[in-house]
């Protein structure tokens, strides 16, 4: 196997509050190749967002290390753009200005004004949001906000794209639309993606590998499942595909038989 692009090496994470320390993640090991699409699935509160924030550099690891292209991740940066669980667009900026802020900051030195404008519009078109470029976040729907969040992240040309349940709060139809968008973008740009999800179908449909996490506290990686379905994938055809059905069953079995949700956790 080639050397991993992103390596999460024996990482654990504890939070201490008022003299009490709780270990949220314990000895996480994960290697991701360039261009790979990895889904992380687990019950609510097990530490998925925490893991993603560690990779993003937003919170420091307690022990272990995270390496991106063999360089240690120490602080947040645009090479690990993140689409947050709740969009987190800046409400005082228009859709265009939200993306443009990222473009100016990340490409300000390399691109001219005109190129930055084009690049902003290009990314908005990629998520089909160019038509609403002058609207403010409060004026667009939840699905549209997530699209803009995605455009903002893509515009940074990250080495790794981090998606924290980007479609969690959306209805099934909008969600399916956005999943198709993500698949299309992944196919054409070849990004390396880590996506957190609650949704088994979403995980199987989109990813090359599914990382299943045990329940917290001190959550670990329970199992890793390869999804060897050819791309491009069609959601309608897959429904009856034996590989798809099998993968789905594996994940469900993990989540509901072996590590069913414990209320106390």
């Amino acid at each position, binding site marked *: 196997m080639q050397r991993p692009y992103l390596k999460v090496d024996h990482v654990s994470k504890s939070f201490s509050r008022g003299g009490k320390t709780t270990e949220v993640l314990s000895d996480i090991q994960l290697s991701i190749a360039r261009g790979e699409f990895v889904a992380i699935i687990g019950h609510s509160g097990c530490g998925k967002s925490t893991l993603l924030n560690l990779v*993003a550099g*937003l919170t420091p690891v307690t022990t272990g290390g995270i390496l991106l292209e063999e360089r240690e991740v120490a*602080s*947040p*940066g*645009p090479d*690990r*753009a*993140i689409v*947050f669980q*709740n969009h*987190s*667009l*800046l*409400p*005082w*900026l228009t859709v265009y200005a939200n993306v443009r*802020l*990222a473009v100016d*900051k*990340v490409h300000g030195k390399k691109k001219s004004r005109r190129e930055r404008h084009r690049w902003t519009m290009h990314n908005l078109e990629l998520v089909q949001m160019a038509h609403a470029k002058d609207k*403010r*976040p*409060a004026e667009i729907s939840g699905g549209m906000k997530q699209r803009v969040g995605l455009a903002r992240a893509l515009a*940074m040309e990250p080495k790794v794209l981090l998606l924290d349940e980007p479609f969690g709060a959306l209805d099934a139809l909008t969600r399916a639309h956005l999943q198709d968008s993500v698949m299309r973008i992944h196919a054409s740009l070849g990004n390396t993606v880590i996506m957190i999800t609650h949704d088994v179908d979403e995980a199987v449909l989109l990813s090359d590998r599914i990382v299943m996490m045990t329940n917290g506290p001190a959550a670990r990686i329970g199992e890793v499942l390869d999804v060897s379905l050819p791309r491009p994938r069609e959601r309608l055809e897959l429904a009856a595909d034996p590989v798809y059905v099998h993968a789905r069953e594996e994940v469900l079995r993990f989540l509901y038989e072996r590590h069913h949700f414990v209320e106390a956790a």
Partner: protein
Amino acid sequence: MWRGTVSAAWSTITTLTRRFLETVVPPLVMLALILFVWQILCGRPGATLPAPSVVWAEAGDLVMQPFFDNGPQDIGLGWRVLVSIERVLYGFGLASIVGILLGALVGQSVYAMRGLDPIFQVLRTVPPLAWLPLALAAFRDSNPSAIFVIFITSIWPIIINTAAGIRNIPQDYRNVASVLRLNPLEFFVRIMVPAAAPYIFTGLRIGIGLAWLAIVAAEMLTGGVGIGFFIWDAWNSSRLPDIIVALAYIGLTGFVLDRLVGMIGSIVTHGTTAS
């Protein structure tokens, strides 16, 4: 089509008329009532304060001609109000800049908060005029002293509200800023100020109100051509009707200043509060 336009125009007119009737007429009615009662109370012989009719007879020219100019101490109240407003704008402008910066510091840094907040909480209770002797001693001139009093009066609510606004900036916005690697200046301009704008404007609005309260009092003591000194001067020469007219000027100006800051605030923060 024609009929549609006409009826649309008609309904606009009726709503405008209704709004006019609802907002302008009640205060006018109340005002008339107050003037009436006042006239009855102060119209009797032996009354200590002038009745509205007397005020109008003796000081009506101050109302009708706000901008006459007959030499150094004989100018219209409009000019005097403008002089006072100018002082307020210097003091308040300075307080806004310093207040927002200090507020940002206190809101952003726990150590600055622990160190400075108790001091601010104590200082803000000091009445504006108590600063005046110190200011006079330090500046040896009345104009900068008056401006300093405005500054020190209006800065506390600006600091305190800005700090509260900055403490309330959602973690999400901070995360966005750190992923983009915004430097401290960019963070201040692009994230802090807009995110805290509703709070900042609350502080500014309280601040301008206090500033206006303080200027009149400060001018009574420092002299000059402001509206405050006019009142003091009128008192010394027993021109009570002039004082009453000046009070009306002060009240209306304070009202306009408050509304102005409020309006600027709602324009600037448009879209900030909703997410």
